[in-house]
């Protein structure tokens, strides 16, 4: 395996007595896309902020290109580019001026800075809007400019914090293409997302975070094999029937999970024969099925599975 460009070793971060990160390990080699998957508050952004030198870790070690992010912060900043959750470009400047400014700050001469800005604008299909103020850009254009801005210094490591949140489907696919191209050029990419589909499409490896802890990790296929079976959701006629149904299914070896509200339970199914078994079991338990549906695995299912393990590892809310 190529040498890791991004390394988090047992990283912890506490704010007051709240543990935002609790012993997180991540390793990303060059040319690879790594996904941090999790809900709001899972600790994704905190980890990105630590790795991009914005926050200091409370414990553990974080290294970029082999350099410690705390001790060698200024050197680390030479290797990284960050596209934060909110567009960090200057609204009042034009797209070209934004990129030129960053190139100038990185030491480029005036002409070099303009050349680099134009090159990136071309690459990100923003040449037409180069001279317009960013305040007039659409969400997708702004995001592209934001990513372009983090690439001005040709960093070896890129952090993308929820790069497609709030984008329309077309813009989203555009961003995906950019990210894939970056990895092909040898950049190590760490991106955060709330969308399982996005992680599946883009990432070589995924780390699933929940409440500051790594709850699962691996390639998308490994994760899916682990937790991502198709689910059947069964809606019963009354909420009072839920415990009966779960117990009856449990007795036949099928693990059903009650959903947070209402009279719905979700049941993983591997083969269609399972469906017949579920219906039969519920009939025999005298519960009434009012609705039955298939659903593809969502982040919620993955979460429910991983944070409500019967072994009692669940985190108290």
């Amino acid at each position: 395996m190529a040498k890791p460009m991004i390394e988090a070793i047992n990283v912890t971060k506490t704010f007051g007595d709240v543990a935002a990160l609790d012993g997180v390990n991540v390793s990303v080699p060059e040319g690879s896309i790594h996904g941090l998957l999790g809900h709001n508050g899972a600790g994704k952004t905190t980890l990105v902020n630590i790795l991009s030198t914005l926050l200091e870790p409370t414990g553990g070690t974080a290294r970029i290109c082999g350099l410690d992010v705390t001790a060698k912060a200024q050197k680390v900043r030479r290797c990284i580019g960050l596209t934060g959750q909110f567009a960090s470009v200057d609204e009042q400047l034009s797209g070209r001026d934004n990129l030129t400014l960053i190139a100038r700050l990185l030491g480029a001469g005036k002409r070099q800075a303009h050349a680099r800005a134009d090159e990136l604008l071309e690459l990100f299909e923003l040449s037409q809007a180069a001279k317009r103020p960013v305040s007039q850009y659409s969400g997708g254009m702004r995001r592209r400019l934001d990513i372009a801005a983090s690439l001005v210094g040709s960093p070896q490591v890129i952090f993308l914090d929820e790069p497609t949140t709030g984008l329309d489907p077309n813009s989203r696919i555009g961003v995906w293409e950019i990210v894939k191209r970056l990895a092909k050029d040898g950049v190590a990419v760490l991106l955060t997302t709330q969308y399982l589909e996005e992680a599946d499409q883009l990432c070589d490896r995924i780390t699933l975070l929940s409440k500051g802890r790594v709850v699962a990790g691996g390639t998308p296929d490994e994760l899916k094999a682990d937790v991502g079976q198709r689910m059947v959701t069964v809606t019963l006629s009354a909420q009072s029937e839920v415990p009966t149904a779960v117990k009856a299914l449990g007795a036949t070896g099928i693990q059903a999970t009650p959903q947070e509200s209402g009279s719905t339970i979700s049941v993983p199914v591997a083969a269609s024969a399972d469906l017949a078994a579920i219906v039969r079991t519920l009939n025999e338990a005298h519960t009434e099925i009012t609705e039955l549906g298939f659903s593809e695995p969502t982040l919620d299912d993955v979460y429910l599975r991983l944070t409500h393990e019967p072994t009692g590892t669940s985190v108290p809310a």
Partner: protein
Amino acid sequence: MTVIEAEAEAGRRRTASDREGHPSEQWGSSGLFSQTAALTGRSIRPYLQVGVLVVTFVEPLVMLLMFAGVLKVLGDAPGMPTDMAYIDNLAPAIMIITAVAAGAQAGNGLINDLRNDVITRFHTLPINRFSVLLARSFADGARALYQLIAVAVLAALFFGFAPPGGFLGVVGTVLMSLLVGWSMSWIFIMMAAVLRNGDVLRMITTLMTFPLLFASNAFVPPESMPTWLRVIAQANPISYANDATRSMVAGQITLAELLATVVACLALVCVCAPISKRSFRVM
């Protein structure tokens, strides 16, 4: 280095990171000076819109009209220097007010930057973070300079401002007001960096600037004030700044007075700037 060695070196670099020619490798490194210059340009940009330029020009005009018109009667108040026209006494004070008000804006400017998230990106760049604060102070300094020139020109054109100190005296007054305003801007930059809360900052700014500017010798001589106010006015640093600029327009400034003003201003920056730098974080 021989040609072969150079090629080998270039080759190594290419294989180490073969990405789109890697243009940034030919770039030099930037220092505090060039970073500050680039960032000052960015912070000045919003001030250069036509509408903003007009408003910032009109602001001192309104102040001149108000004070020169309304307070003209006070020109005969006891304690006013009788050998000078009231405008010669008022214009330097308005310059100080203008410069300090522009300086107070620097705090809001920094808060806006912090809200903008652009600062987050600057914090991930290998630059000297102090350049962001320096640029902020210089941008608002540039705005103050523009307004100071407006005060001088308008006062001369419409209010008969022609002090004994002559053109040099007026230039000196503009520069001294600029120094006072710039050094005071560091108080507000420091508060913005420490508080990082726009609402609280605005309240404190108003609370500070009003007594600073009005409980001073700017408009009326302290001798005509009630005792408690006189004590405040006489201790107010703005009164000293007004004294200095008034001596300047009168062409009577002494080296001691000049040095005292410059040293006081620089001392203020030397206290506030390091605290601002230390407190300046994004999260």
